[in-house]
């Protein structure tokens, strides 16, 4: 299953719910404002770092670039994908589950 999250933890706690309920081995893609949560040292990043073994983590590149967040600022283990990569993840997984 591909889980998408679009908000920072300080906007809405949907990342928290996603990490609590997403099954082991599922993919998590950070889009829109959620990409800020991948910045090293942020509250969101600390949670994401704990879940790296359980989930494959992705962040949407155009949302990072839009917001001025550079790949070097991100925690390790996050793969940056473009919209075609988002589509590929949606094709690879049987279900896409948006946490709103």
């Amino acid at each position, binding site marked *: 299953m591909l889980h998408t999250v679009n908000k920072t933890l300080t906007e809405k706690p949907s990342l928290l719910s996603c990490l609590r309920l997403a099954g082991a081995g599922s993919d998590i893609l950070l889009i829109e404002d959620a990409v800020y949560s991948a910045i090293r040292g942020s509250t969101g990043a600390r949670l994401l770092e704990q879940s790296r073994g359980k989930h494959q983590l992705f962040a949407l590149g*155009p949302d990072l670039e839009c917001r001025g967040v550079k790949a070097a600022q991100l925690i390790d283990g996050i793969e940056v994908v473009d919209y*075609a990569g*988002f*589509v590929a993840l949606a*094709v690879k997984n049987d279900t896409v589950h948006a946490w*709103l």
Partner: protein
Amino acid sequence: MKFNILINEGPYTHQASDTAFQFASAVFESGHEVVRVFFYHDGVHNATRLGAPPVDDRNVIARWVKLAEDYNIDMAVCVAASLRRGVLSDESASQSGRAIANLDQHFKVAGFGHFIEGAIIADRTVVFGD
């Protein structure tokens, strides 16, 4: 692969419609197709033909219309959600006693079941909201 898309928020206010548009474009560029885009909740505001954004900004509605024309996408707004929010087709305008309608002609009005039908026939359903 066939995609069915649900958009739950209005244009500009939330990024949902932007992200859905970029995703839908990438679906076609990747050799797949979007068979249906359904607009629910405030998403119905994406179907107004009265939007007049600043000239130096993107036109979210015009962009959807062009993509739908290029690739023959079925675009529909939920009837109940759109009545509540004042997005009316000619038919829903006359049924609710209004002289004018503001739904862009590239969108149709349908029940939420239309989205469910899309979910049944498509290989993937992807939701964009806030």
